[in-house]
């Protein structure tokens, strides 16, 4: 649970269920004026509120998460264009990254405006550190050479763009009651997926080519170092790479029925065995997306 979900929880206590989706977000946001009052709610009360754990995020929480994600990507390409991508050897691909940066800035601008228009003060971007040292030189360098070695940069950028497309997928459920915002988020997600595809194409076609496909595949060489996130199994389970989610081969319909791929993809419809996992991009759950962002800022 975080502040915004508590806010929403309190605001919905005596509010009618959302008949007008657009108003729902505005109502939530309007409550932000009561920030001081809500912040004064004793912690004990918050803890005593039942069933608040992790499942009560709102479209606001989701917007804040996606804004931090976009801020991270803006910082990644801003820093890289000033360092590793300023190398004349990368002159040919530099315009690609300028375009991606410009599009990420557009997304961040929209998300910030969405929050501001409705009364929240949008969070400012943290000082992102892509070495993994958390801006402390005494900490170990998790991702060496990212801003000096093109291949190290591409490897991290691929993971972050894939995680971006997946983080968007993990948040769209929180926008179900606001079709306008849902539409915007879906359309930004599709641009993130294009970026992710391009980063993978760049790795495959770089002077030191890595045989990744343009979509996550179990055939891809695993990145090393990998960006690790908490295991969905929780507890003391070892952290997992983001591609562990992409290996999923089970798709479900709304009524929880499993799509019977072994039955329907046979005969003339037979596919390569890796294709079922490749054919679907998977959501990165909120807890994992949040933890991933916290690695860098």
């Amino acid at each position, binding site marked *: 649970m975080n502040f915004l979900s508590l806010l929403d929880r309190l605001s919905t206590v005596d509010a009618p269920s959302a008949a007008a989706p657009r108003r729902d977000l505005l109502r939530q946001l309007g409550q932000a004026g009561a920030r001081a009052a809500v912040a004064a709610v004793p912690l004990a009360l918050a803890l005593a509120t039942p069933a608040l754990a992790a499942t009560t995020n709102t479209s606001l929480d989701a917007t804040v998460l996606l804004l931090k994600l976009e801020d991270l990507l803006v910082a990644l390409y801003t820093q890289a264009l000033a360092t590793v991508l300023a190398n004349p050897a990368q002159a040919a*691909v530099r*315009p*690609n990254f300028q*375009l*991606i940066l*410009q*599009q*990420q*800035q*557009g*997304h961040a*601008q*929209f998300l910030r*405006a969405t929050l501001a228009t409705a009364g929240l003060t949008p969070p400012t971007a943290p000082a992102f550190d892509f070495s993994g040292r958390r801006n402390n030189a005494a900490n170990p360098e998790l991702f060496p050479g990212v801003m000096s070695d093109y291949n190290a940069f591409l490897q991290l950028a691929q993971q972050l763009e894939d995680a971006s*497309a997946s983080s968007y*997928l993990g948040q*769209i*459920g929180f926008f*179900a009651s606001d*079709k306008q915002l*849902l*539409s*915007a988020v*879906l*359309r*930004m*997600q*599709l*641009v993130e*997926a*294009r*970026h*992710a*595809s*391009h980063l993978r*194409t760049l790795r495959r*076609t770089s002077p030191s080519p890595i045989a990744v*496909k*343009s*979509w996550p595949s179990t055939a891809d060489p695993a990145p090393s170092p990998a960006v690790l996130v908490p295991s969905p199994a929780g507890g003391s389970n070892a952290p997992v790479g983001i591609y562990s989610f992409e290996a999923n081969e089970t*798709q*479900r*319909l*709304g009524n929880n029925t499993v*799509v*019977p*791929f072994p039955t*329907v*993809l046979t005969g003339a*419809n037979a*596919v*390569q065995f890796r*294709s*079922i996992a*490749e*054919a*679907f*991009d*998977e*959501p990165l759950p909120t807890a994992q997306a949040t933890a991933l962002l916290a690695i860098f800022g």
Partner: protein
Amino acid sequence: MSDSSFFGSGALERRTFLRVVGASAATASLVLAGCSDPAPEPTPTVQNQLLLGESDTGLLNYFYLLKQLEVAFYQKIVDTPPSNLVAGDKAAFDDLRDHGLAHRETLRFALGASTYETRLERPLAFDFSSIVLTSRVGVLTAAQQLEDLSVAAYAGALPLLVAPTTVALLAKIASVEARHAAFVRDLRTPGTFAGNDVVVNAGALQSVSLAKTPVQVVEEAKAFFLPFVVVTQSLPSA
């Protein structure tokens, strides 16, 4: 029979009316003849019209139809590749076809007995006479058109779905479609993965995917469906 009772008749709903207004003069005269009798439902077998249905089912049929088109296209390339296709291209088209099959069969399974095909005597055979299938540049050009169109179709129609679980499932497919589109564009012209012909500003929205309505998508793809005409009026538009 007055106009008001014509439109108020439960037996001839608005969607049915829209379905028949595009029909031939002969069919139109049948409908007019029907005005003298409030009871009969016009027969739904208007020649060469593909009716997709309404609401989420209609939208699923729309995505299913587009996916059938895409798979049929890739199957043709896999079966009879252009002679100047290189080895890497062939492996990629195998992947694109296989992903398409997984998507198509997911949509078919989700529709169950509600596929538009149950109203057809035989499965649709797509008409590819409008594109060049015999050269690398021809198939890459067509692949880019189909993939970009597919992405724009998802961008335009996913928000029209009512069931959030269906949105979530199809968004996972749409994301891979966007990867395909960027991949094919980069294969054709490196660096064009997210050009300003497919990533646009729209009002307050910055750098979002181009989105097209079902009407726009079907209009662009209509040559592939000939001699059939896809009727989109029954689909949700908001």
